[in-house]
């Protein structure tokens, strides 16, 4: 996972680089929580550009981060979501609380 913090906009961009399942969410959760607590961002963006796979474990992880960020007074956005990931996000209702910035052009 690549981490990028933009100071002017207080935006934390977390670029996910792996397939998201029960196994990988442990590590994603650990890094994300650490970075969020460190920067106290106004906005957190999960970038799905390199994510080819996500299952319901990813939904749990996103909802958990959403609660945490909300409690700290920030907002959560998603970006570069591909078709397969979009399908799961839509089904689980995550899209109702986390807006998507822009769609991935490839698939």
């Amino acid at each position, binding site marked *: 996972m690549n981490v990028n913090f933009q100071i002017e906009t207080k935006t934390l961009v977390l670029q996910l680089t792996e397939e998201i*399942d029960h196994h990988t969410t442990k590590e994603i959760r650990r890094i994300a929580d650490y970075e969020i607590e460190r920067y106290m961002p106004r906005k957190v963006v999960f970038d799905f550009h390199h994510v080819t*796979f996500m*299952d319901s474990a990813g939904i749990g992880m996103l909802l958990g981060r959403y609660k945490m960020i909300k409690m700290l007074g920030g907002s959560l956005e998603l970006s570069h979501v591909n078709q397969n990931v979009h399908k799961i996000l839509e089904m689980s209702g995550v899209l109702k609380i986390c807006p998507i910035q822009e769609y991935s052009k490839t698939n």
Partner: protein
Amino acid sequence: MKGLYDNEMKLEFACKSNNEAFARISVAAFASQLDPTIEELADIKTAVSEAVTNCIIHAYDGIEEGIIKVEAKLKENTVYIEISDTGKGIENIEIAKRPLYTSKPNLERSGMGFTIMESFMDEVIVESIVNLGTKVSMKKSIKKDQTLEKKDEKVSQEKESSEKEGEFYDI
């Protein structure tokens, strides 16, 4: 072996979370013989991942000694997948299948596992006996040559319209 199926495979692996990717990729590779679309393959991968995750989190409850069995069979254009464990079983399958229900809310689980399996596959059957184990059987038909048929339709339509145009100019 002359069986009921055109092709079959069987996998057994330890109940470790790093085997989730192995399981879904293996099944997807096996199912790719049916020439599915990328979307259909992603659906199969997701459903397998959900079922295997259930075995790891719920059936064996984090004990890494358990064995998860994955069987996949192909017949014509349908893939049949069976994922079974010998873990603690499900007491009430109806409740477990309910969307957003999770028996482990502290793990940040979404409770969407069975719901995703059911909507991504054509058929999902769950059989379970408490303290003996659980078996999830899934089925998905791969729609054959969708794109080719569409192309053929287009070509024939174009032909028709060009023929009509020709007639028009003849007159």
